[in-house]
């Protein structure tokens, strides 16, 4: 993990008054610099990071580079092949595929990030407390995790998606339910991972030292131990982002995602099936977009794993 190395001069430089803000800014800069130099140790990670940067850039710039309304239908320009006017062509309603992919990506990425965040917010405290306190808390939490892991995820998605559709929720609530369903499926894996690392970490001497100076258990577990256990979580979260994206795409491919006019990579692929023979490009671009995004997350996750866990390099 990148270590925060702040040189002594930063704090001891008494001639020039340094405000807290500049100090923390400088510290941030150091951390970033360290992180980048660590990242450069793995080619996979660099490639993944670059692909992610492109993805992020495209999502942020969507309102400026998407040239058409992703929802407005235009029957004069139905099923066009890629051209200078429509980079990726148009679909059967004459909507620009390039614009739809951009807007869809924005939505899809937001949902996956939020879903993984939900998993992290539930899983990490659960894993930490269960690893640190042990006894009945541990026994109880791990039973819940075991049961949850045995529970097939696809069943949860299908049931929740069916329910959400029947209740005819507005788009926002629809997405929220999806985030919840996906996130709740992430937590057991994360909780188990954190618990394992916490178990190893709590035997170390610095924990003993903290106890000796009288820090509370809650403080030790959350402020001292947890930060040292984060590296596997970061790797797992990155890889989960990719798999979550795949699940969302599959659900919307089945027509269980957001209702039709919303731009969505999965449902656009499904629409393309009727015109595959004559206009294969409609089916190719959304699929490429999904694969690109998932590949970016997977490459980055793999690279991070190499950096954070040197024992696994060459595996």
């Amino acid at each position: 993990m990148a270590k925060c190395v702040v040189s002594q001069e930063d704090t001891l430089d008494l001639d020039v008054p340094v405000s807290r803000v500049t100090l923390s800014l400088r510290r941030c800069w150091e951390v970033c610099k360290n992180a980048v130099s660590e990242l450069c140790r793995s080619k996979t990670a660099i490639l993944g990071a670059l692909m992610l940067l492109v993805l992020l850039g495209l999502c942020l710039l969507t309102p400026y580079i998407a040239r058409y309304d992703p929802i407005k239908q235009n029957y004069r320009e139905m099923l066009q092949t890629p051209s200078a006017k429509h980079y990726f062509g148009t679909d059967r309603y004459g909507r620009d595929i390039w614009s739809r992919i951009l807007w869809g990506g924005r939505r899809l990425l937001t949902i996956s990030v939020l879903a993984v965040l939900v998993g992290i917010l539930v899983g990490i405290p659960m894993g930490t407390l269960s690893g640190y306190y042990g006894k009945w808390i541990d026994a109880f939490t791990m039973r819940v995790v075991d049961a949850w892991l045995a529970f097939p995820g696809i069943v949860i998605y299908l049931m929740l998606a069916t329910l959400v559709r029947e209740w005819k929720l507005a788009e926002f609530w629809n997405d929220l339910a999806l985030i919840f369903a996906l996130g709740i499926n992430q937590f057991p894996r994360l909780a188990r991972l954190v618990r394992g690392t916490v178990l190893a970490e709590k035997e170390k001497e610095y924990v003993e030292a903290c106890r000796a100076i009288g820090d509370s258990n809650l403080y030790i577990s959350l402020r001292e131990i947890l930060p040292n256990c984060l590296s596997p979580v970061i790797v797992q979260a990155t890889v989960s982002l990719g798999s979550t994206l795949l699940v969302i795409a599959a659900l919307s491919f089945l027509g269980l995602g957001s209702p039709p006019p919303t731009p969505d990579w999965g449902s656009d692929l499904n629409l393309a099936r009727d015109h595959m023979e004559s206009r294969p490009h409609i089916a190719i671009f959304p699929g490429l977009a999904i694969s690109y995004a998932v590949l970016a997350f997977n490459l980055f996750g793999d690279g991070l794993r190499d950096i954070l866990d040197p024992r696994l390099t060459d595996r």
Partner: protein
Amino acid sequence: MVMYTINRILYLIPVLFILTVAAFSLVHCLPGDVIDVLAGQEGVVDPAVRQALEHEYGLNKPLYTQYFIWLNHVLHGDFGTSQVTRRPIALEIFKRIPATLYLAIVGTIISLLIAVPLGTMAAVKRNTAVDYAAQLLSLVGISIPEFWFALLCVLFFSLYLGWLPSSEYYSPFDHLGLSIQHIILPAAALGIRQAAITTRLTRSTMLDEVQKEYVDTARSLGLPEWKVIYQYTLRNAMIPTLTISGLQLAQLLGGTVVIETIFAWPGVGRTLFEAIISRDFPVIQAGVLILGVAVVVINLLVDLMYRVLNPRVRLA
């Protein structure tokens, strides 16, 4: 081993309980009247129909009693009647199980046929172009959505080349040739992800295994290299690989929903999908329950098998 098996089966009880409660509550969480949902039409006014349904499902009794009545029906193989076909659901679903099993098994076989040689080659020729190509392929395989891969397969092999059919199902017991021809595309699309995962796994277990001392001993005894690799090392490396592919079989069942829909494969996954589209809730309930139980049981069997192969494993 006996204790382990008993313990492991005891763990199933809460999971199955939650699974049944979830499937049961599906119908009750829907908007509107339960009787409307069960009868498949809105605003059932005929009092005789209402009363008959109420009596059958015990709808005038408390919710937990309803759950046990439903569970009793389910345990006797009665999942109710489909609202679309008006036939018993058990009949509809059970006759489709073989098609799904066939697809899942052939998918797993295809994935192993790709993954084991590729992973072994990558490990043996470590850090060469072969290794990098195998690693890249498996990474791409993990990242491609299976339904897109399926569409590309149909586009290329059925529409452009016209080599393989893109839909229809023939039972392997009736027309073996036709059946094999028809299963290649769906099974390949289903197995591609598994193949990618298994390639990585085979590679890393092989790398572990090659470094062990018995390999050096075998080499120093003058055994030919292929014999060392294929007869000794690979055999040991296969233990975790096979276990994981068993576990993946459970995941594969989830994938059948999408793949069966694309290839018009008459399996459980497609039944479930059609039920969701046509809002046939008793069928959704049954499909979800059967899929869930299948996954849980497969996981149990794999755990037990792993324990037999590797006795050091303890119950977590």
